[in-house]
């Protein structure tokens, strides 16, 4: 959450899924009643572990997130290592290069594709559904980062056990 507005989403509505600042974090996140207008069936969460910090993998993860959110699935995003680094405040839209899978022939095609930036897709996902983006506590410590160093779309910092508790009985995907 951005400083000064804990507990509210982009639209200013209360987000029960947001962790309490300085307090205990809920093990199971509640559904946001304000989102029931779009899709109201209870769905299992999908949980994405973002490890890679290249623009292509972040974009693929963002597309999965926005699709899941649109279809009514709560999404937990856990930022580790190089993905966390890409979410640093002021660095989000910087060039994060492409993954090593991209060949010399593919790279310009990927770069020229007119899709939206991954950061915009994550924001749309948060607007349309239940999306909770958490920084991995270990990676935060490794890179000497504090919450204020991260983009406001990152809701908080948590450890791996809390992330797994949120994942509950839904799938966990590592990207």
């Amino acid at each position, binding site marked *: 959450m951005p400083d000064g507005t804990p507990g509210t989403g982009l639209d200013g509505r209360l987000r029960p899924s947001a962790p309490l600042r300085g307090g205990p974090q809920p093990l199971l996140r509640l559904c946001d009643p304000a989102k029931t207008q779009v899709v109201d069936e209870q769905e299992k969460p999908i949980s994405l572990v973002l490890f890679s910090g290249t623009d292509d993998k972040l974009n693929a993860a963002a597309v999965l997130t926005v699709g899941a959110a*649109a279809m009514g699935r709560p999404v937990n995003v856990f930022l580790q290592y190089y993905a966390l680094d890409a979410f640093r405040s002021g660095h989000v839209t910087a060039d994060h290069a492409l993954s090593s899978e991209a060949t010399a022939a593919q790279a310009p095609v990927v770069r020229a594709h007119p899709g939206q930036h991954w950061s915009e897709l994550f924001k749309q996902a948060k607007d349309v559904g239940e999306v909770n983006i958490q920084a991995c506590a270990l990676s935060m410590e490794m890179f000497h980062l504090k919450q204020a160093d991260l983009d406001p779309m990152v809701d908080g910092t948590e450890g791996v056990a809390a992330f797994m508790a949120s994942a509950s009985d839904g799938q966990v995907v590592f990207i």
Partner: protein
Amino acid sequence: MSAVQVEKTIDARGMACPGPLMNLIGAIRQGQVGQAFDVLSSDAGSKTDIPAWVAKAKQELVEVREDEGFTHFVVRKAR
């Protein structure tokens, strides 16, 4: 021509997946029950995504019609 009166045309041609769907969701959220929206999309993903979302969100897919290089998806806000 579609049989329903279209409230608003959402020209999402050229937008990449899932842009057209997200524009539709935005229009449905802001619209009134009974209003219909005509989404124009050239994104191949829309052909599966828009019907899947409409079913999930319990909206109404009034018409899917091919045009020159794009598809019309007429969706009515059902609730």
